[in-house]
């Protein structure tokens, strides 16, 4: 009887070890892995939740500053056609009292390879007096679009600046104008 109990004890111990080795330990490892996975998912969830909460805040803030953003949109438009720019320049020249003789689109190139912003240049040949030109330049500088006059050359026989200021005489002006777009 004693021998048989000894054998049963050995058998039980052997079964216990086998049970632990083949069933309990793998389940423990799986549990630990899942615990880590849950911790990571929780961290990911919290980070994502906080991120999109911040996105919502910023989006509301942008909504509140829509007017300022419209100015930026006007300054850096997504241009697919040059027609609005040409129309704008023609409108401003006629408002200033100038007559457009020629308007050439000279260049549209990306500022750098990694930059999406393009530099758009125009060459504008206009007729009018010196005061009208100053008005035109002033209106370009005050417009929401960021225009830059990179080159102006003008001249004709009558004098432009100085002496008896003949600012009402007509002259021919050649302007190179630069702006930016996406």
């Amino acid at each position: 009887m004693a021998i048989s109990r000894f054998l049963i004890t050995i058998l039980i111990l052997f079964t216990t070890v086998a049970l632990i080795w083949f069933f309990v330990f793998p389940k423990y490892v799986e549990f630990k892995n899942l615990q880590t996975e849950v911790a990571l998912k929780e961290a990911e969830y919290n980070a994502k939740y906080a991120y999109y909460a911040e996105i919502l805040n910023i989006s509301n803030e942008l909504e509140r500053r829509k007017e300022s953003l419209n100015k930026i949109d006007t300054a850096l438009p997504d241009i697919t056609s040059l027609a609005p720019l040409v129309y704008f320049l023609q409108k401003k020249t006629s408002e200033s009292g100038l007559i457009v003789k020629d308007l050439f689109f000279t260049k549209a190139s990306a500022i750098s390879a990694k930059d999406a912003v393009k530099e758009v240049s125009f060459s504008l040949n206009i007729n009018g007096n010196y005061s009208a030109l100053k008005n035109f330049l002033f209106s370009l500088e005050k417009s929401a679009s960021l225009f830059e006059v990179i080159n102006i050359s003008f001249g004709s026989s009558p004098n432009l600046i100085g002496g008896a200021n003949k600012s009402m005489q007509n002259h021919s002006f050649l302007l190179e104008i630069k702006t930016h777009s996406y």
Partner: protein
Amino acid sequence: MDLNSISKFTKEKSLFSDIVFYVAISLLVSSILCYFIFLIKISSQKERVKVLEDSMLQIGTAEQKEKEAIIFKYQKKIADYTKFLNNHKSTSNVFAFLESQTLPEVWFSRINLSERENKIILTGESGNMDILSRQISTFEKNEFVKKISILNSSVWDSGKIKFSITVDLDPILFVSNY
């Protein structure tokens, strides 16, 4: 060896084998219990992972991603706009400068203004050489003038001087709100 000591030894051996037997039994029961505990825990953890994954799917919705894209678009636009605004140049300042610095006896008939190089080439005429010298001196004294070079000058029959000068300007003059 007497019978008493044999009996005592047998009893002690039996007690020891009983302890070992019950310890083995309790170990077996414990390991089975552990197995089921882990099964339950694993199931609950899997449930938690599924809940978290479902919750995460509800966070990055198409609407939220659209808002995110708009924010990134404006982030870039604002950065670009700030850069261009800071470097924005104004040419009308140069005309105000010329008007204020030109002497009454000097006329400009041709002006070539290069904002890129911050320079102007002025072609014009003056009553005589002395007036031209005073004009150049006026320009030189101005804080916005960096350098003046005379390209050419010639005396006409009428005594008037025809000239062409290059004026290198301080880039600050082209800044919109200097």
